[in-house]
């Protein structure tokens, strides 16, 4: 099986051809070592950082931005999203606070990527 990718490691954007031959993965077209690594990863198990928001109550924002502590398998992305979209938090939240530990048994945590203070929700009068 042969697959083609655009390397996203640097702006060169090398066109990679990755192929499995006799149990060995061969990367062609890469300009550097990091490109080879990327090619192998993309071929076997493409991974991405996950960023999105979760619902938060009691702050000046209605959503808290979150980020994964490491890359996660791309083909499970929507599974993680679904799990994250069920979360409802109460402010305050500290940056780095774990929102979901070991999401989908991946060994990677989802953490808050900013702090959010609690605010008093008072009805403002005109």
């Amino acid at each position: 099986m042969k697959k083609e990718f655009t390397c996203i490691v640097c702006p060169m954007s090398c066109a990679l051809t990755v192929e499995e031959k006799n149990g060995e993965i061969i990367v062609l077209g890469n300009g550097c070592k990091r490109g080879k690594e990327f090619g192998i990863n993309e071929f076997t198990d493409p991974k991405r950082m996950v960023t999105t928001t979760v619902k938060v109550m009691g702050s000046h924002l209605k959503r808290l931005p979150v980020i994964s502590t490491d890359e996660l398998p791309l083909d499970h992305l929507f599974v993680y999203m679904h799990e994250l979209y069920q979360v409802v938090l109460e402010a305050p939240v500290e940056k780095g606070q774990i929102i979901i530990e070991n999401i989908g048994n991946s060994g990677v945590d989802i953490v808050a990527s900013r702090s959010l203070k609690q605010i008093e929700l008072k009805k403002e009068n005109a």
Partner: protein
Amino acid sequence: MKELNVDVAVIGGGPAGLAAAIEAKEQGVDHVVILERDVELGGILQQCIHDGFGLHRFGKRLSGCGYAHHFIESVAEKAIDVKLKTIVLEITDEKIIYAMNEVDGMMKITCGAIVLAMGCRERTRSQVFIWGTRPSGVLTAGTVQRYINMEGYLPGEKAVILGSGDIGLIMARRMTLEGIEVEGVYEVMKTPGGLTRNISQCLKDFQIPMHLATTVVRIHGNKKMEGVTVAQVDEKRQPIQGTERFIPCDLLVLAVGLIPENELSRQLEVEMDPRTKGPIVDEHFMTSIPGVFAAGNVVTVFDLVDYVSLTGEIAGRGAAKFLQGKLNLDLPAKDVLPGDAVNFVVPQRIRTVNAEDSIPIYFRVKEEMRKVEVTATVDGEVCMRKKHPIALPPEMMVETIQLEKIHEDARELRVSVKVG
């Protein structure tokens, strides 16, 4: 009216302003104040929840808010004065700022130095001349980003994105993850505006098609948008008859470019560069008015926040030196000029007498080039050569020139790029 005296006033609490304020404070300036119009510091970074920020500075892949967090903490630690929900109405050439908020009312702030760090704003529908009606459902990418990431609302169920710059690409992924159907990304130019890696991870990962040399020519619907018409364009970017296609959708996301926000600079009558649409600055990012500095996207739209922070620091340092009387403004400045294939350079002027050991020069190429050589010449004599595998218009380039290479009598420094 409240009257205040400050040493350095920084207008804008985004990445440029934060860096400028912190650096000025570190350089020993006593009273630094940040005037920020929003309810919190961080600027547009607070709505950039995606990763990829701070690779240069922190060696980590942070989200925009994560990146801002580091600076905001530093501002708090250093006891820098912050005025939120504060709008600057006017700056006089005597460096007096009129600013206002709900608590202080109108303030007259007399400043030793000023750093302009107002950032940039998005181009609108009218500026790209899309014909048709004016229904609801036409929003800029930044507005959509704010609604989705901060306020938690979806502005539509099916979207078309115009513009393949990074903001457009990021929003394609973001909307898809939030359940909005992204019909496609349309780009009037023949080449994408954004980074290749973003095309890969924002579009290809989600099978979102990109249509090059194609644009939105018409918006339909009187009150609510019913759809858009797209068409391919010719060499002159004019729609080709017969290629029109109607796409039913309730959201058109415009990612059609950013413009430095320079209303205050213009009112102050600082000298502007028509190429960057920002103030002309020197090696300390000082404008044509002594003591008034500019940093970040107000100077030119950078694509990396790391550069924005760097220019903020340069300006902050400059403001401190200005107050300390360390800047010699008597000698004429040397011009920095864009040479072959270069669109613009920043800074546009240098005073070697004031400069630090090395001077970073930011520039963009006019078109995509591979295997290039960047050269800098001083009055025609080459003082620096550097090879790069690729040069792309969407990517700001930066070369550092050693001060010793620029002799005192030199008149101009020129940066050129050529293949080979």
